[in-house]
């Protein structure tokens, strides 16, 4: 029970982990993840890796949608740029750059390219807002995938048939196993969350929030909309690019159709379900969005007993469940799961003196 939140200095107040419970939680999670990496079975590792990659992307998306208040339905494009960027760099550098060094060059460059593309895609955000921006980003997503699929670029991107991706070699440590990849993904996911949490203690982060709350007012306060809207897009695209890079490392090959609108919608859905503009929102959201289809699958398998004629109902039901999740949260819990956990924690905190 927290009885007070006493701080003796501004520095204390500004800390990311500003109380002992948060510290215990964060350090505890590190231990749990380490244990998970060591003991979980292959299937859980597989699911956890998918979650981790998606989490990084959703945290990135949160910067644009949750903190800056700009709508985007095209973030899968940045994941594609990251994934293809890393792969192409690896292929270009093969032979000249030692493999053990390659990831340390490829990943930052790919992330930087994503950020650049993010700025380009973000350009319409200066002129249009809300819905128009949603459609502009959606259009950008279609165009990026189209470019990747073009025969013209097929020597580099593999075109429609996809391309094989490298296994990263981190200074001699080749991560060609899912379990090893999980370690890498978990580290990055953790770092991403902390980075974004940290971002909102800075001037840039506060500027984002000011823009979200009222862009014109922010401008009057001296915040350059041009600069900060584009910064926001760049940062968020960079994280998505990172997610893409990890995705390329995780899978043995990638196809352009993996990065279509469906993925963009999944990212947004995870954000809505989890809670926008909150640190833990993406975490909860991703867990739900990844787990619900798995749960439906398990339940269905148990009910149908492997009867294929029933099994064909499963995919449509999973799709519908995905849609219902978005609608349900928007209608009944627009602030997402974070809001539910907030209420529970508050109730626990005040118990037994008050409820709710």
């Amino acid at each position, binding site marked *: 029970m927290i009885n007070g939140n006493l701080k003796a200095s501004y520095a204390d107040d500004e800390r990311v982990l500003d109380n002992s419970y948060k510290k215990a939680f964060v350090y505890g999670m590190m231990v749990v993840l380490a244990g998970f990496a060591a003991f979980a079975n292959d299937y859980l590792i597989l699911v956890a890796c998918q979650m981790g990659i998606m989490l990084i992307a959703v945290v990135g998306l949160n910067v644009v949608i949750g903190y800056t208040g700009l709508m985007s339905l095209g973030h899968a494009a940045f994941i594609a740029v990251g994934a293809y960027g890393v792969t192409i760099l690896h292929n270009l550098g093969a032979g000249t750059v030692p493999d053990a060094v390659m990831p340390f060059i490829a990943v930052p460059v790919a992330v930087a390219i994503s950020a650049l593309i993010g700025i380009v895609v973000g350009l319409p955000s200066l002129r249009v807002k809300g819905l128009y921006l949603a459609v502009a980003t959606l259009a950008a997503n279609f165009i990026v995938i189209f470019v990747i699929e073009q025969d013209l670029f097929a020597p580099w991107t593999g075109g429609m048939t996809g391309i094989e991706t490298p296994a990263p070699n981190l200074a001699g440590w080749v991560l060609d196993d899912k379990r090893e990849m999980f370690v890498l993904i978990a580290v990055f996911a953790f770092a991403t969350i902390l980075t974004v949490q940290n971002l909102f203690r800075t001037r840039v982060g506060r500027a984002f929030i000011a823009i979200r709350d009222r862009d014109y007012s922010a401008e009057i306060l001296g915040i350059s909309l041009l600069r900060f809207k584009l910064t926001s897009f760049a940062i968020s695209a960079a994280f998505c690019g990172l997610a893409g890079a990890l995705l390329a490392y995780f899978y043995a090959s990638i196809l352009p159709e993996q990065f279509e609108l469906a993925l963009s919608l999944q990212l947004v859905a995870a954000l809505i379900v989890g809670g926008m503009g909150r640190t833990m929102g993406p975490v909860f959201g991703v867990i739900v969005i990844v787990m619900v289809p798995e749960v439906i699958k398990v339940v269905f398998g148990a009910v149908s007993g492997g009867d294929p004629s029933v099994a064909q109902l499963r*995919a449509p039901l999973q799709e519908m469940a995905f849609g219902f999740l978005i609608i349900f949260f928007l209608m009944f819990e627009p602030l997402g799961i974070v809001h539910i956990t907030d209420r529970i924690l508050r109730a626990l905190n005040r118990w037994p003196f008050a409820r709710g």
Partner: protein
Amino acid sequence: MGQILQFGINGLMSGAIYALIAVGIVSVFKATKVVNFAHGYLIMFGAYFYFTFAVLLPGMSWAPAWYVSWEPAWLVEMKEGLPMFSPLGAVLDWLTNLPRVIIGLIGALAANAVVGLIIERVLMRPLMGQSVFAMIMVTVGLISVMSGGAQLIWTADANYVPSLAPNTPIRFTLFDTQIFLFGTDLVNAVIAVLLFGAIVAMVQFTKGGVAIRATAEDQSTAYSMGISVPRVFARAWVLASLTGAIAGAILATRNGVSPSLGLFGFSVLAIVLMGGLDSYVGVFIAALVVGVLEAMTQWKFGGDWAGIVPYVAVLLVILVRPHGLFGQKEVERI
């Protein structure tokens, strides 16, 4: 020159159908300020309903013979001795299908209106007054629900439906080039344009249309003037569903019924933004322009390039004119 004409005409014909789809998005936006991302899936439902009433039901064992294929004595007589694929044969084949086509259309209109009403009542009305983001994202969620639902009900298989008009080929020479057109395409385009005009006229001149415009102008004032805003909402959604049903039936005859019909919604959404969300005229022009551009791209670069034409076009237009070609600039108070 003749080639350009050929593909120009093709483009105008598909542009007309885009316009018919777009009218649903614009109508809903005008009345409710919601941009319906799931409109393509409403169209897909229309197509599936048409399929149900024109193909599935006649396939049932209890369906009366005239419903399955209408073959009065004079028709059978006329058909005899006709060579395969003759123009008259196409008309007669269409006549045989006519009962299915009519019942299919009526069924699709009715069923789709019900779907539209349900969406409005269950999802949209509770969200009245919520943020634009919430409303748009609800329609995005609706995409998954509807596409999953369609697969659940009809399975995801591509199917064929009878065309709305006789599919007589039309051939003529222009500037020394043979021009080919399909009769049914021409009729579809005419239907689309007439419907578009009728709806614009309705919104402009009838009492219900005035109510829609008044609500678009200012919801609370419209309320206080005695206009039932919820009814306007419902009417707009029904309008969108009805045009969607016709558009769905047309698309189904062109491309076959499959869940991928829903994707048309996205490119039409781009067209709508290009034309200006609240301007029927702008959207009509944008639809025709994109239709022609697509056909030209198809001709010069092939099918895969045509798909992204609307998206490139909308990006360019938005960058220059943020509210579309003819859209009204939003005035914001701080």
